[in-house]
């Protein structure tokens, strides 16, 4: 094992996987409430732009990060209105949200292309960083990495250990029964949609505040769609989402390093790797699945008055 190659690679895998982790956790939450939102890619780029813009104009990255969550929620709110109020088709509405979000970010972000903004850098903890392997890989990351790692267990606790989480899951599994039991199913679905949007917005914020400190168009490069696939791969479980996100982060980081090292593989072929892996991972997930692990009422709109 070549430490000089692998340790920076593992550290890069975490950085590259963090935006995907935020987005995957968000989509897990949304889908658990029974709503599928294919607008993740759109919410991510809008979050990335909002974060970049606020960081640049206020110089406060943490505030920018929080606002990115609000921006993601706002965009998700459109999906919520179309699907929960007007009972529109969830698949098509999510796609439209991605088209809208990508357009909005390109349109509003064009004047910012090539500029830079303050963001997050690695934290310096001298004693911890000296620990072999663990130090350089995980203990010298930026603050947002730790926030994302905290989000996964928090989401698990929320979903499986709180009454609200139970209610939200029942809105995704048995909405009629939940409504009959007196739960406000639509409200819990709103919670899933908005909170999921905030997490996707945070994933985008990571791209413009920590992964790069720049703004370019098309910054998300399909990460939102990979997140949608990872939800299936993770069987809707937050813990497995961490593994999946870092796997993809690893492949993206490896691909960049191979390009930089100048292999005889053309860069367009190397760039295909994460997308091809997504297909492989989907097939694997279907093989491993024991029963149907998707929320039973996923994508099915409900009529609150019937």
């Amino acid at each position, binding site marked *: 094992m070549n430490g000089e190659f692998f340790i920076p690679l593992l550290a890069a895998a975490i950085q590259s996987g963090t935006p995907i982790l935020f987005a995957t956790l968000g989509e897990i939450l949304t889908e658990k409430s029974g709503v599928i939102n*294919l607008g993740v890619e*759109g919410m991510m780029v809008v979050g990335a732009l909002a974060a970049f813009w606020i960081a640049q104009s206020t110089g406060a990255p943490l505030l920018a990060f929080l606002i990115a969550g609000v921006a993601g929620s706002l965009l998700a709110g*459109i999906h919520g*209105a*179309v699907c929960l*109020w*007007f*009972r*529109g*088709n969830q*698949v*098509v*509405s999510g*796609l*439209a*949200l*991605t*088209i*809208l*979000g*990508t*357009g*909005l*970010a*390109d*349109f*509003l972000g*064009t004047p910012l292309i090539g500029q830079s903004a303050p963001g997050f850098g690695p934290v310096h903890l001298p004693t911890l960083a000296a620990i072999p392997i663990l130090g350089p890989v995980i203990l010298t990351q930026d603050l947002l990495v730790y926030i994302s790692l905290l989000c996964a267990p928090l989401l698990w606790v929320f979903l499986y250990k709180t009454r609200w989480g139970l209610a939200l899951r029942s809105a995704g599994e048995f909405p009629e029964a939940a409504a009959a039991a007196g739960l406000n199913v639509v409200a819990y679905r709103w919670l899933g949609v908005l909170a999921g949007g905030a997490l996707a917005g945070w994933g985008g914020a990571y791209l413009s505040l920590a992964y790069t400190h720049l703004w370019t*168009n098309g910054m998300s490069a*399909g990460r939102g*769609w990979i997140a*949608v*696939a990872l939800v*299936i791969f993770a069987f809707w479980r937050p813990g497995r989402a961490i593994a999946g996100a870092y796997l993809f982060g690893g492949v993206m980081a490896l691909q960049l390093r191979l390009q930089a090292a100048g292999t005889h593989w*053309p860069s*367009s*072929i190397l*760039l*295909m790797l994460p*997308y*091809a892996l*997504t*297909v492989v991972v*989907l*097939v694997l997930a*279907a*093989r491993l699945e024991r029963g149907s692990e998707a929320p039973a009422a996923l994508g099915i709109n409900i*009529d609150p*008055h019937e």
Partner: protein
Amino acid sequence: MLPLRTFKRQETHWWVSCLIFPTAIGLSLAICALLLKLQGKPAIQGIGLLFQGAFGSHWAIQDCLLKAIPIFLCSLGVAVAFRLQVWNIGAEGQFALGAIGATAAALQWPGLPGYALLPLMAAAALAAGGLWGFIPAVLKLRMRANEIIVTLMLNYIAILLLDYLVYGRWKDPQSFGFPMTAIFSDNAIVGRIGDTGLHWGLALCVATGGVLWLFFRFTRLGYELKASGENLGAARYAGLPYERLLILVMLLSGGLAGWAGFLEASATINRLQPSIMVGYGYTAIVVAWLARLNPLSIGLASFLLAALRVGVENLQLDLQVPAAFGGIMEGLILLTILAGSFFADYGWQWRRRSA
């Protein structure tokens, strides 16, 4: 709680459907005008430029028709798949593969006469686009892989494949380093109709649309497809061959998008280069849904969304508005239509006092 309750309508009033479309367009235009205002651009003048650019001259309308051709073919394919409730989001990639297939034939046999080469290119595009539709179909049937994500990932892969070819083995040595193939031989270029600026791809669109309409209307297979799309469970129960229908639909869907790629490479830019990918495959999804999957309405909706693209080009020139403006419009129109359908499908009545 409001004293109103919603109920599902038995029949949709035609006038409600007629109102939804203009309302959605109007609402989307209003939001876009607001966005222009926010950017410090003249909003009313901007919307005026949008219309003038799209419909202001006979050249503009011709341009709309030319851009409607690839959108129409892709959208026809998307609609066929959506009918069977197969979510083919992959028209963009299938379009790219069609362009690649047609280019392969054009570069391989540049000397063949047009009457042989053009059908060969069309066949290659149909096969390549069809293959890109076949892969997700097989993965869905055999591996239960979600077709939305597989078709989307294949879009990214197809565009990178196109890049690989034009940056690498197909690059024209005389292109001064630009990523593009050599210009096609005259025999490989779809001709113009008379002395208009339109090309014969338009005729191909009309013919394909007609054939598909007849197919759904009069053939047994077409009927099976329609029936399965309307009620999947019942169709399976009645023993309709769902698996074969799915494969067929995805082959057809991919092949049609492939043809769009063939026409763009051959008739519009006369070579293969990365700028051929402008998102027609995604616009096609918007069109298919606006048209409620009906081939005739798809023709009209393709023209409208092509007009939007032409209008946005005018905005770009005159007000330096980024091209992404078109994407915002497309997303907004689709979202407002989705929400608006509610008013066609549901009605209100006074809530009765609880007994």
